[in-house]
C-alpha cells in the first residue's frame, strides 16, 4: 500500500511546475494541519473538566481575529498568484506546434488523427490510430480535442494533462514530453457504461524514431 504524498514521476515540460505548486501547497497545508490539530488536542487535554476549574469569561480579541484573517488571506492569495502563472502556461499560452493532431473521444475510444507527410490536417494523406497517441519528444504536441457524443476527459497522468472533451466544441490542449516511453491515456469523466475501458497508450519517440513511425503509418494507411 502506498501511503505516500509524493506524486508519481512526471515527464512533461510543465509537469515540474505543476508538481512544484503541489509541494508548496502540501508544505503550507501540512504545517497548518499539524499546528491546528496539535493545538486542538493540546487544548482538549489541558482544559478538560476537572473539579474546581472555571472557564475564562472572554468574548474574543479583535487583534487576534484580524491576525488569523489576514495571514490566511495573504497565503492563499499568494498561492493564487503563483498558480496563475503555471495555469497560463498550460492552458492559455499555446506554443507553436511541433506536431498537430486531432483527438476525438467517443464511447468508448480515443481516435487520433495525424497530419501525414504534408504536415497539414484535413488533407487526404491524414492517417489515424485508435486508442494510441504517438508523438515525438521535445516538441510541443498541440491537440485539438473533440467529442462525438458525450463529455469525456482526456487524461495523461504522467504528463499532468487533463482536459474535458465537449461535443460541439474544439478545445486546444498541448504538452511537450521530455522522455521517450509508453505512458497512459485515460478518461477521467464518467461517460457511460464502458467508461472504465476507455484507456489508451501514449507513445513518445525520439524525433527520428517518430519520423520513421509516421512515414510507415502514412504508407500503410494510404488507399
Amino acid at each position, binding site marked *: *500500500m*502506498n501511503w*505516500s*504524498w509524493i*506524486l508519481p514521476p512526471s515527464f512533461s515540460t510543465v509537469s515540474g511546475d*505543476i508538481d512544484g*505548486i503541489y509541494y508548496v*501547497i*502540501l508544505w503550507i497545508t501540512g504545517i497548518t*494541519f499539524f499546528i*491546528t*490539530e496539535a*493545538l*486542538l488536542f493540546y*487544548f*482538549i487535554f489541558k*482544559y478538560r473538566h476537572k473539579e474546581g476549574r*472555571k*472557564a*475564562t*469569561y*472572554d*468574548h*474574543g*480579541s479583535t487583534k*487576534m481575529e484580524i491576525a*488569523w*484573517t489576514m495571514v*490566511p488571506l495573504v497565503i*492563499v*492569495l499568494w*498561492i*493564487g498568484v503563483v*498558480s*496563475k502563472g*503555471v*495555469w*497560463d502556461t498550460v492552458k492559455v499560452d499555446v506554443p507553436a506546434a511541433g506536431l498537430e493532431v486531432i483527438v476525438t473521444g467517443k464511447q468508448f475510444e480515443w481516435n487520433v488523427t495525424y497530419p501525414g507527410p504534408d504536415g497539414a490536417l484535413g488533407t487526404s494523406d491524414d492517417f489515424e490510430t485508435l486508442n494510441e497517441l504517438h508523438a515525438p519528444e521535445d516538441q510541443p504536441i498541440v491537440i485539438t480535442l473533440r467529442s462525438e*457524443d*458525450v463529455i469525456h*476527459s482526456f*487524461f495523461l*497522468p504522467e504528463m499532468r494533462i*487533463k*482536459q*474535458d472533451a*465537449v461535443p*460541439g*466544441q474544439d478545445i486546444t490542449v498541448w504538452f511537450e514530453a521530455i522522455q521517450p516511453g509508453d505512458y*497512459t491515456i*485515460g*478518461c*477521467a*469523466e*464518467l461517460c457511460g*457504461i*464502458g*467508461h*472504465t475501458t476507455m*484507456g489508451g497508450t501514449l507513445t513518445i519517440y525520439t524525433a527520428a524514431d517518430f519520423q520513421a513511425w509516421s512515414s510507415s503509418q502514412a504508407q500503410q494507411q494510404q488507399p
Partner: protein
Amino acid sequence: MSTIEQEMVHAAEGGHHDHHELPFIRKYIFSTDHKMIAKQFMFVSLFFLVIGGLLATMMRWQLGYPGEPMPGGMLLPDAMMAPTPNGAIMLPEFYNSLVTMHGTIMIFFAIMPLLVGLFGNLLIPLQIGAEDMAFPRLNMISFWLAVPAGILMLSSFAVEGGAAGAGWTSYAPLSVSGEWTGVYLGQQLWLASLTILGFSSLVGAVNYITTVINMRAPGMTWFRMPLATWALFVTAILILLAIPILAGALIMLLFDQTIGTGFFRPEVGGEPLLWQHLFWFFGHPEVYILILPAMGIVSEVISNRARKPIFGYHSMVLAIIGIGFLGWIVWGHHMFMSGMNPLLGTSFMISTMAIAVPSAIKTFNWLATIWKGDLHLDSPMLYALAFVSMFIIGGLSGIFMASTPVDIYIHDTYFIVAHIHYVLFGGSLFAIFAGITFWFPKMFGRMMNETLNKVHFGLTIVLYNLVFWPMHNLGLQGMMRRIYDFTQYEYLAPLQPMNQFISISVFLLVAAQSVYAFNFFWSIFRGEKASNNPWDSNTLEWTVPSPPPHGNFPEMPVVYRGPYEYSSPESDTDFYPQTKPPPSKPPVQELIPEPVTPTPEGF
C-alpha cells in the same frame, strides 16, 4: 402551582396530553407542529442515510474486489448483477447507478434534510422564542412533498434500465438520452424527484426566513440570536435563491429528454456547458447549505460544553454571511477542466481562495473557544470536536483543488472524493451526530446512553479516517473517480490492496453505525429521563419542558442578553440564561420595546 409549573410537571410525567389533544393522524402524520415535523424529517432522512450507506458498501465491494461475486448479490435482479456459477458479479451500469444514487441520496435526501429539515424546524422557533413557524401548514406541506420525492427516487431502481447513471451531477449530454447511458425512465424519475424535492426545500426556506425575521421574541435582536439559528437563516436564503436555478435546469433537462427540446443537446446547437454552469451555480451554494448549519450546531455545542462564550461571536456571524455571499461567485472552480475559458478559471480560482478565509476564521475561533475553557468531554462535545478536526483536513485539502494547475492533475480523481467526504461526512455528519445527541433530550425528554455514544464515536472516528484518508493517496496516484474497474488501467492495478483496505474499513464503518442506531431507538423508550436543561444551556429552547408542549412557550419569553454568556461573573452559576433578568437592571416592562400600533394604510 402556577400554570407554567403545572405544565412542566405534566410534561415531565411523560408527554403532553394537556389541553391540545389532537387525533393521531393530526399529531403524528399530518402534523403542523414544527417539533413533530422536525422528527418526521429526522426519521425519514435517517432511513435514507442507511440506504445511502448500503449503496456505498456495494460500490466499495466492486472497488475492493473488482469482478468478484458480491455476497448476497444473487438476491438482486439480473439487470443489476450478472449471475455466474460462483455468485453474482456487479454490472457496470449498476455501478454507475450506485455512484449516482449514493451521491444524490446522501446529499439531497439525508444530509440536507437532516440539517435543514430536522434542525431548521426544531431549532429556529425554539431558539428565537416563537410558538411555531410563521406558516405551520406550509411546513407540513414541505415535509409531505419530500416524501413522494424520496419514493420516486427509490422507485427508479425498480424501473427498466435501472436508476439514473450519469453521476449526481448528471452532466449533459450523457444524462440527456438513454442512448448514452442505457437509462431512460430512471433518469426522468431522478429529474422529477429532485424538482419536487426542490419545491419542498423552497417552501421550507420561505418559512424559515419569515419566521426568523418576524417571529423573534422581545429582546431577541439579530446579534442575540444563537449561531445555529444564524447559520440556518443564511442557509435558508441560499436555498431560496439557489434551488430555483436548479429547478429551471432540471426542467430543461427533463424537456430535452421527454419532448425533445434542444437546450443541452449539441447536435441541435444546445450547450452542454450551460448545464454545468446552471448546475454549479446552484451546486456551490448547495455545498454551503450542507456545511453552514453544521457549523452553527457545532458552535452551540462547543461553547456550551466548554462553558465559555464563543470566541468572536460577531465575526462568526459575519463569516457565515461572508460564506453566504462568496458562495455565489465560486461555482466555476468545479469547471476548471470543463472547456470553460481558462481565463475565467483564474478569476474563479481567486474567489475560491478568498472563500477559504471565512472558514479559517471559524476554525480558529472554535480553537480559541476551547482555549482556557472548562471542557466537558461528553459525547456531543466529542462529535463537535471531531467536526472541527475533520473540517480542518477537508478545508485544507480544498486548497489543492482550488489551485488551477494542481487541479489539472487531481480533478476527477479520488483526491476530490476524499475532500468531499472530509467535508460532508467528517464535517456535516459528525455535526449531525453532535446535534442529535445534544438536542435528543429536548426532542424526546430522555438522554442518549453516554457509554454507547462514546463507543460509537471511537469506532466511527477511527474507521472513518481509515476509509477516507487513503483516498487522498489513491487520488495522488492518479486513480479516477466513478470508475467501475480501475484495474483495467495498468498503472492503477497496484492500488488494489489499498482499495481493499478501504473497502473493509467501509464495511466496518457501516456496521459500527448500528451502535448509534440501537442507542437512538433504545434511548427514545428507555433512556434516562432528562431535565429541562440537562446541559445547563443559555438558549431559549432549554427554558421549556422536554419535550416542549404545543405552542412551546407558556409565556412570551423576554431576552436580555446574547446566547453564550457562560461563566459570566454576573451569574452565580456557570451559565446565564438569555431570559434571566439582570440583577440590577430595570424591570421587565422597560426592556420590552414599545408595542407597535397597527397602521391601517400599511396593510
